[in-house]
């Protein structure tokens, strides 16, 4: 950071003021307000005068994390589901993205076209993409069952979107939607690896795997770390894929915090409980992100 103008010291503040005001109203106040609501028993009768809602201390949090109440069981299960969903989607998505990026870094006829097409899953709007996947996964009229049966992998058509397979279906659709951004980022990083270093390593007798592991991969590390960190945040807050493919109530095996909280707050009108559950989700995300950041230190390598 070097020279800045110091003509009118207030000018920079005036310029960021509108953005700050908008974000205060939509980001910062609601966070504080959300904390306050989570300590109150706010329902449909008290909502227009929320300060009148009884203060209940940590009751909402106890409720959200209780093993012996239905809401608590649902919430704990949804936390388990989102961790399962997040870890499978992120790890498989990353491996696929990396494999395709390496493939598209080779010289072949039509490479530019294929690279352009890779963006398509990322561009398709969430509601469209997951609605189409919902269509694809239909039991009787869906094309997935048709192919699995004609390949002999299935005997009878299976129900994908209800029950234990629902999560698998959502994960497959989410990987399809998610890998393409990672692939483009990794491809850009691959193109920054100097040709000479690779050639030098190869002529020194390194195997292709060694070249990848010790020469190429270090170049991919910074972008990989940031991308996985962002993926953790995005996937733990996932809502669209579950809503579009499974509806407002995805069921025991595929319930995730966002869908559960939405129903608790806006169908059962337990606003306080919903706010407490949101806090629980935030804490989970922050803990995982911080552990990840401590282990891999994504910010550090980017500066090097």
């Amino acid at each position: 950071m070097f020279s800045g103008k110091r003509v009118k010291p207030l000018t920079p503040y005036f310029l960021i003021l509108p953005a700050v005001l908008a974000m205060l109203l939509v980001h910062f106040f609601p966070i504080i307000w959300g904390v306050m609501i989570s300590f109150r028993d706010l329902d449909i009768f008290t909502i227009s005068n929320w300060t009148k809602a009884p203060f209940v201390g940590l009751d909402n949090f106890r409720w959200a994390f209780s093993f012996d109440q239905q809401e608590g069981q649902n919430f704990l299960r949804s936390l388990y589901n989102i961790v399962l969903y997040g870890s499978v989607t992120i790890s498989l998505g990353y491996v696929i993205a990396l494999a395709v990026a390496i493939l598209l870094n080779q010289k072949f006829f039509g490479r530019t076209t294929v690279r352009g097409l890779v963006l398509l899953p990322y561009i398709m709007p969430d509601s469209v993409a997951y609605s189409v996947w919902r269509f694809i996964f239909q039991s009787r009229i869906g094309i997935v069952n048709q192919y699995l049966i004609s390949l002999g992998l299935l005997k009878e058509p299976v129900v994908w979107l209800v029950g234990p397979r629902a999560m698998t279906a959502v994960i497959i659709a989410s990987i399809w939607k998610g890998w393409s951004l990672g692939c483009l980022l990794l491809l850009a990083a691959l193109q920054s690896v100097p040709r000479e270093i690779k050639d030098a390593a190869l002529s020194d007798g390194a195997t292709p795997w060694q070249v990848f592991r010790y020469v190429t991969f270090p170049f991919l590390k910074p972008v990989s770390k940031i991308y996985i960190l962002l993926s953790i945040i995005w996937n733990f807050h996932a809502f669209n894929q579950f809503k579009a493919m499974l509806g407002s109530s995805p069921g025991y095996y595929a319930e995730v915090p966002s869908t559960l909280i939405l129903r608790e707050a806006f169908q059962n009108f337990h606003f306080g409980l919903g706010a407490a559950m949101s806090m629980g989700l935030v804490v989970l995300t922050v803990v995982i992100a911080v552990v990840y950041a401590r282990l891999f230190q994504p910010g550090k390598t980017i500066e090097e």
Partner: protein
Amino acid sequence: MNSGRKVLRMIGIYVGAIIVVVVVLFPYLWMVSGSFKSTLEIQSADFRDPELPPRWIPRHFTWENYTRINQTVRMLDYFKNSMVISGGTMLASIFLSLFAAYSLSRFRFRLKEPYVGSLLLTQMFPGILFLIPYYVMFVVFNRFTGVQLRNSYLGMIFTYTSFALPFSILMLRSFLAGIPREIDEQAQIDGCSTLGIIFRIILPLARPGIAAVAIYGFIMAWNEMLFASVLTGTETKTVAIGLLEFITTQESRWAGMMAASVIVTIPVLILFTFVQKQIIEGLVGGATKG
């Protein structure tokens, strides 16, 4: 031997590339194919019956799903709502982020680092966390001022603008940092005010960056589902949520849904091709060069 391995390698590459293309295009093609089928054809499809498996090429090609797009689900109205909300978000986020990004790229001030930090921090919180207090805020605001923000264009534009802002500001800041300061200084010597510099000098020079921010805001508002599912009503429902109405407990109108899907995707597809480079770079670059 060596050339044999080379041939094998090339075959491997082409097979891989073909798999990638097939996987990427599969849902797109199934969507387009479904949009030209009749509801009857889709519903009567049954792969256990050798006469009636679901097919890629429609048995009876029909435009009906497109011509009747507004009949069962008011898709055209939702399309208009989305256009207004996304367009409004686009304009509002251009202006707010232009001022903020200019300030961040040109001045040094005490609250700069905390402010940038808070922009990044907002990305850590799930939308659902904001939704409940936000809803309460709308209700309370309505009670005190009588202004209805829920189920109104204004409320939605305001919401989406502030969602688009953190990323827009960071993206535009790195773009403005590339415009030499000497240009502003020269203008200042010539007697131009700060606002004059922003509108007369920076605005024209930063057009590509602004286009990227604008389109990012538009697409974000076009695709958002969580807030739209609670805060919009019959008059303001957006396409992202309206699309789901094709499937009800009574009836599954897949053909209509696929036609609507095509129509919802096209604006995004067109806009994205203009700015894909800036958005992809900004998405990771802008967020990391804090």
